[in-house]
């Protein structure tokens, strides 16, 4: 089984998501950059992706729109700033409802070892306030999350 997902919050403005996949990175890369593949996995199971546009070149625009079961439409878009196929992709991200106050820079790094690929996604917000503001995302509201025990959190925060 692939290593489990890890999420850490190093520094004041970053969120880092890491996950391993049992596939070569060329394939994982394609799943992140081809709309017909991306829309098959990105987002929550009960949300529908209605727009998935990717102009994969530096300065090219991307735009996603997902619709919640409640009918709420969440749109986000940005510009590709770095593309090193199949190793690294960086893009800006701005939500239509600008709760993150200025958007973020998202860097995804794909590294392969023995046919398995680790994806490291580093989201850098424009300020600590912006990172905190992401807490109010409608995306988050659509989910039912149980409260995890303080023990687990402290362990995770200490490991960060």
């Amino acid at each position, binding site marked *: 089984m692939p290593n489990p997902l890890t999420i850490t919050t190093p520094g*004041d403005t970053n969120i880092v998501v890491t*996950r391993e996949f049992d596939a070569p990175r060329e394939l994982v890369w394609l799943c992140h950059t081809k709309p017909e593949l991306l829309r098959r996995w990105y987002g929550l199971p009960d949300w529908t992706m209605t727009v998935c546009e990717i102009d994969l070149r530096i300065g090219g625009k991307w735009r996603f729109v997902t619709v919640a079961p409640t009918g709420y439409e969440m749109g986000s878009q940005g510009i590709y700033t770095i593309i090193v196929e199949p190793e690294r992709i960086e893009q800006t991200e701005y939500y239509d409802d600008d709760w993150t106050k200025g958007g973020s820079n998202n860097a995804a790094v794909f590294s392969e070892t023995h046919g398995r690929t680790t994806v490291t996604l580093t989201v850098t917000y424009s300020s*600590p306030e912006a990172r905190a503001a992401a807490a109010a995302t409608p*995306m988050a509201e659509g989910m039912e999350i149980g409260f995890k025990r303080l023990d687990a959190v402290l362990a995770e925060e200490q490991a960060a």
Partner: protein
Amino acid sequence: MNASERLDATFIALADPTRRAILARLKQGEASVNELTSPFAISQPAVSKHLKILERAGLVTRSSVGTSRPVRIEAGPMREAVDWLEKYREFWEQSYKRLDALLEILQTPRNTDKPKTKKPRRDDDA
């Protein structure tokens, strides 16, 4: 403070390893500043400064009773920060689970119309 500012204060408070260690200690029960200072190679004023930041975030409170004024952990703001991270985690876990399934389908040899039908030759690990 509104919810966003509170969360921000929480993250700033949690960003420091000494403050996380203080919280881990307080998780076992309340303690005086003296008791909190002894495990760390820093001065009592330095610990007090960390405590002020933790207090501002609402992560700890200091009793006004007694000369030692014990410090105790408050779960509420921590819960907000955790809930947020858990929601964020849920989004990626759900998405990546679907990506696992998709990658498996794409690597099944039957799917000859897919971009990759077998694993490419492995690169040198050097």
